[in-house]
């Protein structure tokens, strides 16, 4: 387990997500441990634990509970966790103004879009879904390597951007599946 050194300093709402959860600042994490930490923290800070307290305590509890939930949402999602790590290293995503992607990646995206347009059966859609899923897993592995082993933040940011494209595509794909099932 990592050191509990951060526990000696007072924690503030401005602590990083990793500090708040007593986790090492890295991409790899144990999901069960993260979930257990989240529940342990909420048992301490959730407003329900302060139902008998004064309004100042309740306000504080709300702030902390919100902060703990915010950190948990970010840490449990690999894509958001990777983006957050890059940001902590001073390499923000700049997702809105910087959308230049390698040509090969864009070609693949266009191919997927075409495949999606032509997929009219559940089988075709699920097959495309697993292909996207495989590509996501590979990109996540590369991203993890860039972050935790190479510490190459620029390479990691590139993978995060690619993953964001894939996530958006996956949403469209799932929408299509939903509509097919509801029909």
């Amino acid at each position, binding site marked *: 387990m990592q050191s509990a050194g951060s526990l000696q300093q007072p924690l503030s709402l401005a602590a990083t997500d990793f500090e708040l959860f007593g986790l090492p600042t890295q991409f790899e994490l144990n999901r069960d441990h993260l979930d257990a930490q989240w529940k342990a923290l909420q*048992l301490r800070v959730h407003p329900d*634990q302060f139902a008998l307290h004064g*309004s100042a305590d309740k306000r504080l509890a709300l702030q902390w509970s919100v902060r703990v939930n915010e950190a948990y949402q970010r840490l449990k999602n690999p894509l958001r966790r990777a983006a957050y790590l890059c940001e902590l290293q001073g390499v923000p995503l700049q997702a809105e103004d910087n959308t230049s992607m390698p040509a090969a990646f864009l070609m693949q995206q266009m191919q997927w879009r075409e495949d999606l347009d032509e997929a009219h059966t559940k089988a075709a859609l699920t097959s495309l879904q697993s292909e996207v899923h495989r590509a996501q897993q590979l990109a996540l592995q590369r991203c993890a390597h860039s972050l935790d082993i190479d510490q190459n933040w620029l390479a990691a940011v590139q993978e995060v951007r690619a993953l964001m494209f894939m996530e958006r595509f996956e949403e469209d794909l799932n929408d299509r599946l939903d509509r097919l099932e509801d029909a």
Partner: protein
Amino acid sequence: MPEGTTPTMALLQISEPGQAPDPHARRIAIGIDLGTTHSLVASVRNGVAECLPDEHGQVILPSAVRYLPEGKRLIGAPALASQSQDPANTIVSVKRFMGRGLKDLPHPDHFPYAFANQPGMLSLNTLHGLKSPVEVSAEILACLRQRAEDTFNDDIYGAVITVPAYFDDAQRQATKDAAHMAGLHLLRLINEPTAAAIAYGLDNASEGVYAVYDLGGGTFDISILRMSRGVFEVLSTGGDSALGGDDYDRCLLELALEQSQHQALNEMDASLLLTAARACKEQLSTQEHAMFSAALSDGLLTTTIQRTEFEDRAQPLTHKTLQAVKKALRDAGLKAEDIQGVVMVGGSTCMPHVQSAVAALLNCTPLNNLNPDEVVAIGAAIQANQLSGNNPDGELLLLDVIPLSLGIETMGGLVERIVPRNQTIPTAMAQDFTTYQDGQTALALHVLQGERDLVKDCRSLARFELKGIPPMAAGSARIRVTFTVDADGLLSVSAVETKSGVHAQIDVKPSYGLSDEQIAAMLQDSFHTAELDKNARALAEARLEADRMWLATQSALKADAQLLSADEQAVIQQLMDAVLAIKTSQVPADIEAATEALAKGTEAFAAARMNNGIRKALAGQHIGAMS
């Protein structure tokens, strides 16, 4: 603290004459299921949660209020029994109108009521004048409060009230207002399926992922939860706020009319047909066929309905609920095989074809060993008991989610999502806005709730006007707007211009719900405050808050005084003494000022204690992980 003992007793005797002066005395806490067709109240007695019966031994209170001449009223069974005598003044299923405007009702003419289109929320014109759905609900809540007070021969400390998981902000706010109007200290609003899960999970010591399928009279809710050692984590929730047992009744009614060539000619016929349909539906739950009979104005209708005919007719309804279950599973990132069990809630889940359809989809036997009518109130009572501090060693934590996404209107009538649905609450999301004109000092925001992309397809919650933005060149102001959803699922909004640090002033115009002024006016002439003038009420509230603050500080000092220096302790002690000294004052503002000073003066202490708690949480986990 020898000097603290005597004043504490005096303090409690002044403000809460009905309660024992011992601050550790049990607080009476109740759970209320405020349902569409009926309502219940439950409480934990001797460690067991149970529904409280009325003087006739009935636990179920029909959600019906009949307004009579001379300011009299009937509530519950007598109101329902005499409904046909005066349908216009007998309000049933008022829950459907909570937080709703007249234009939200698909068929206002299907009701026997004289609706009035009031700003914010529709009203009903009765013998007692205009009544808001909030006031009608408050009558039901007050009746249940009275029942609990009679049972315990004591005042009620606080209540947990349940709402459908799918209730939006306006409907939740309306329920909260009704509690206030009924003189209840609302500890928490919780979702009905979550309450059922608490009752069920604690009763069976269940661990793992469960589904709660709640088919009530007028609404359908589905929640997926993970239960582990007292922590109830809602993973996703969904449903249909306009689908319930009533729709199944309508299927039966249509079948009967088709088979018999009869017609419903008037209000009375419609009401008789519904009653007959309900009786027939109950029989069909245990029999292969049942008689449907109703004495209509065009003659006696009698026909036999086969269970299979009814099931075929109702199949699209059940299918709709199963679609919602699948969606909730997808939202939770789970598959049917991940579900360990499904809890059935609501009287409509007694229908065998509903049970078998749910069992087939989730491939598990439905759990229904608790009374489906009582399970929600029982769960609420357990949570109320916990929040009142009656169970200091028990661990119970609800991590619920926001059921519908929150967004704001952008250009072209589109909605930009700010808080996605199924996010754990409490939660907050910040969004930056800028000005589009030089020197612009105000900004309007329109907040909506719903999953659709167009403003017109979502529910309008409120319009906010941010004022007092420092004048700057167009596009250079950075206004950070924070949307906070608290543990009750209610939204609040704050805004700050980040460059100057100026807090923008926010004017809220709720699209639905009641304004503070409307509530104040209703409270003024509501039954339970009639004898109290405004000052007396303010005084009582100020004293209660002073008590709460004083006692909370005392127990904080008892637990964590070591975090303070002797000087810091002395300062806090002085502030506490000041609160005690001013308690007998007749001026609410003076008491409030002393309470506020104590709150301010203990902020640093509260922060230190919170830090300490967090450290303990992390340290505890580390020990757990290592062992």
